């Protein structure tokens, strides 16, 4: 019953939203560390490990999926209907993956 692209887009948007909610407090704590240079340097050294970078890449992709999925929803709700909106799901996913690829290149290059 739920095996169709629009429902999957809803699930991705909801789950990436939860990831965003979990990420934001951690992000703010790290920003707070900037007041203590030594602690921030320690964190940045930890974050430079490949495994952490890989996790960050997944997080960046999820956040980008949430952004582009949200733009798709706004387009559906605020613009005249388009029967091509299922294509928008694909474009949103492609844009999110492109952002993730950009992050990987920037992190590991």
């Amino acid at each position: 019953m739920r095996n169709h692209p629009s429902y999957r887009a809803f699930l991705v948007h909801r789950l990436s939203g939860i990831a965003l909610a979990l990420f934001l407090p951690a992000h703010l704590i790290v920003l707070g560390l900037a007041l203590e240079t030594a602690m921030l340097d320690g964190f940045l050294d930890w974050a430079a490990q490949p495994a952490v970078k890989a996790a960050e890449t997944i997080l960046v992709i999820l956040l980008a999926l949430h952004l582009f999925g949200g733009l798709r929803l706004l387009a559906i709700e605020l613009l005249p209907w388009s029967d091509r909106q299922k294509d928008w799901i694909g474009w949103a996913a492609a844009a999110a993956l492109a952002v993730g690829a950009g992050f990987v290149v920037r992190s590991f290059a």
Partner: protein
Amino acid sequence: MLKVEIWRGTEEGRYETYEVPSQPSQTVLDLVTFVQRKLDPSLAYRFACRVGVCGSCAMTVNDTPRWTCRTHVQKVVERGRVRIAPLRNLPIVKDLATDMVPFFDKGQEAKGRFIPSDAAATSVAEISPEDPKRKEADAAIECIGCAVCYAACDVVSWRPEYLGPAALNRAWTLVSDARDSDRIGHLQAVADDAGCHACHGHQNCVEHCPVGINPTRSISGLKRLVLMAAVRGRL
């Protein structure tokens, strides 16, 4: 032979398995009718026209809501088995018959009735079939009231007070009708928490509507009109 599992009971109940001969061009409604007429006359189910017009024979077939009179067994059978249950999101009267009252009540709550103008008509309203607003209404007007969309909707399961796709689709046809005289009244009826803004856009309704209506399109249209009316202070 097909093995047909049919829900027996009310909210409390169980699946009973019946053996039904397989026939060419057999519909799911044919299976249920065979069981009731040949195997167990106590089986309760609902149908009328058998040709996809009345919308009364909808049931859950292999976990998917469908109009059973136009669903060929060949399309849904899985390893010789078909599982048939009453529609989701509605109280069960008995076996496969659901109580449709909540579904039709929501049509009224959404103010899904035409409101004529007070003045007596002096001539027939001329509405061009090419008028863009008429086209919007026409795209949504052929609802047969089968409640398949209502049963498919997860938001209805999560929030039973939600008006649901069919009621909101009906409201959209009325706000798109140039002859209706209470556009703001229709928008007010669908603007609260249980109205159009509760829709998450899953589009289960679009995927399952047997007559090809797109309720999500109608609900999105309502969301835009409600937003514009609110910005202009008309709600």
